[in-house]
C-alpha cells in the first residue's frame, strides 16, 4: 500500500486514540527483505524486515515501538503507549489460531467495531448463516464496564443461528459475549459447537488508515478438529465481506457520537455503551465530532 498523501504532523489526534497499539498485519505479511509503506492514523509509516528483525519508522523517520502478539505485528505512534490488552485464551492449549488477513474498508474503524457488536443485522446481512429472518429478535442482554481494565463487556447475549460456525452441523441457539478492550479492537466469545464448556474467539484488530478508511485484521481462535484452516478462513472471509458492503454504504462514514444523530433501540445497548465510552475518553478521531472540530 503505497500512498503519496503528505503527512500532517500537526494533525490533532485525540490522546486516547494516539496512545494505543495497532496491528499492522501478520508477520508473514512482511517477508524477509521487504520494505513496505502503510498508513496509521493518517500518518505514513515504513516497515522493514531484514532476516528476522523488523523495524518500523514513523513520521520524520522516528523509530516506532514494535511487538509481536496474537499472530500480528503491533506498533504505536506514541512513545509511551498504554499496555496492549491481554487475551489469556491465546495461551490455552488445544486452540487453533487462523489469521484471516487484512481487508480494506472505506469507513471509520469505529464503525467496523460497532457493526461487529450488532446482533440485529445477522438475519439480514448473514442470512441463513448467522441468522434467519424468522428469528430476528435480539433478546435482552447485559452490558457492563470493567472499570479496572477500562473495557466494555456485553454478556448473556443469545441468538438463533443456522450455521453459527464452520464446525456447526445444525441450527442452534448460540451464546455470545463481546469484549471491547481497545477503541479499534473487539473480541467475540461464542459458545463452541464441539465443546459446550468452551468459548470460541473471533476478533478484529483494526488498523485505522484514515478517518474514513481502515484495514481490518481478523482472527479465529477456536476448538475445531474437523475443518481445515482454509475452510475456517473461507467461512470468516465470507462473513466479513458480507459486512464490508454494508459498512461502505453507511452514512456518515465516521461514527456519530452525538446521541441525537442516530436513534438507538434496546438491541443497541452495546453500541450505546461503546459510543459513551469513546466520548468519555475524549475520542474525536474518526468520529463526526472530529469532523466538527476540524
Amino acid at each position, binding site marked *: 500500500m503505497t500512498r503519496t498523501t503528505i503527512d500532517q504532523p500537526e494533525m490533532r489526534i485525540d490522546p486516547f486514540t494516539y496512545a494505543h497499539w495497532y496491528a499492522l498485519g501478520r508477520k508473514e505479511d512482511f517477508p524477509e527483505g521487504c520494505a513496505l509503506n502503510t498508513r496509521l492514523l493518517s500518518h505514513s509509516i515504513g516497515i522493514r524486515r531484514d532476516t528476522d528483525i523488523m523495524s518500523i519508522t514513523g513520521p520524520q523517520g522516528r523509530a516506532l515501538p514494535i511487538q509481536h502478539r496474537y499472530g500480528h505485528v503491533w506498533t504505536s505512534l506514541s512513545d509511551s503507549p498504554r499496555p496492549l490488552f491481554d487475551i489469556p485464551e491465546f495461551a490455552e492449549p488445544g486452540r487453533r489460531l487462523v489469521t484471516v488477513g487484512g481487508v480494506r474498508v*472505506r469507513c471509520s474503524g469505529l464503525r467496523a467495531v460497532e457493526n461487529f457488536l450488532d446482533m440485529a443485522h445477522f438475519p439480514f446481512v448473514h442470512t441463513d448463516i448467522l441468522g434467519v429472518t424468522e428469528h430476528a429478535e435480539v433478546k435482552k442482554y447485559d452490558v457492563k464496564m470493567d472499570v479496572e481494565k477500562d473495557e466494555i463487556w456485553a454478556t448473556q447475549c443469545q441468538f438463533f443461528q443456522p450455521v453459527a460456525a*464452520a464446525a*456447526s452441523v445444525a441450527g442452534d441457539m448460540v451464546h455470545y459475549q463481546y469484549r471491547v478492550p481497545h477503541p479499534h479492537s473487539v473480541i467475540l466469545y461464542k459458545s463452541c459447537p464441539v465443546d459446550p464448556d468452551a468459548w470460541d474467539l473471533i476478533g478484529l484488530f483494526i488498523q485505522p488508515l484514515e478517518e474514513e478508511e481502515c484495514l481490518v485484521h481478523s482472527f479465529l481462535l477456536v476448538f475445531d478438529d474437523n475443518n481445515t484452516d*482454509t*475452510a475456517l478462513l*473461507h*467461512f470468516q*472471509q465470507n462473513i466479513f465481506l458480507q459486512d*464490508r458492503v454494508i459498512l461502505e454504504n453507511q452514512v456518515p462514514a465516521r461514527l456519530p457520537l452525538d446521541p441525537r444523530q442516530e436513534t438507538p433501540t434496546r438491541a443497541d445497548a452495546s453500541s450505546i455503551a461503546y459510543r459513551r465510552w469513546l466520548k468519555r475518553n475524549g475520542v474525536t478521531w474518526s468520529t463526526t465530532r472530529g469532523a466538527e472540530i476540524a
Partner: protein
Amino acid sequence: MISSNAPCLVLVAQKWSDMKLYDYVLSGNCYKVRLLLHFLDIKCTLEPVDFYPGRAHKSPSFRRINPLEQLPVLELDDGKTRICDSQAILIYLAHKFDPSRHWFPVNEPEKLGCVVQWLTFANCITAASSRARLHDMLGYTCDITAARAHAHRAFRHLEDHLCHQEFNGINWLAGAQPTLADVACFPYTCLAGDGGIDIFIYPAIQRWLRRFATLPRFHPMPGINIR
C-alpha cells in the same frame, strides 16, 4: 482432502457428482462456476484454496494442479482431467449437464457466436473490475485510476448492448433466455462496487442484474449489492 462444512454454505444442490472445484470464496470467477452448478442443480465437492492471505495458488503444490496459478480449477470425476479457465469450465458444465442446450446453444450457430463473444468480453470486465477490487479490498498494487477507467469503458459497452436488447424486447445478453454469456458477465459487474466503481450510473445494467438475481436457484456472494 477434506470436504468441509463451510463451503456447503454456498453450494446446496441435488445431483451429486464426483467432480471437485478448487475454489476461493471471494473470487468472482469461482463464483460464476458455483452459480452455474446451482442453476444446473449439480452438487460438487469444493476444495477451498487459501488465495488470500496465504497465496496458496502460488505454491508448488498448487502449481501442479494449475501451472498458471489461477482459480478456479475443475477436476473431473476421473480424478485426473482438470479444466483451468472459468469460461472453459462453464462450457464444459453446460455441455455435459444441460441436454436442453439452453445455457450453451450449440445447435444455434448465430446465437452460439454471440454467447462466445460475451464469454470473451467477460474477461475484459474481469481484468479491470477484479483488479480494482483486489486493490481496494486486499491491498494489491495497481494503477487504480486506469483499472476503474477500463472498467467503465467495458460497462458503457455492456450498457449500450443491454439498452439495444431491451429496445428489441430481449432481456438477456444473447437472446430471450439467459445463457453462459450472462453467467460469465454477471459476477464482476455486480462486484464492481467493491473496487470503488459506481455501477448504479448504468440503468440497463441495473435492470439486467435485478433480472439475473431473480432467476430460480440464484445464489448471491458477499459484495453483491443489488438495489
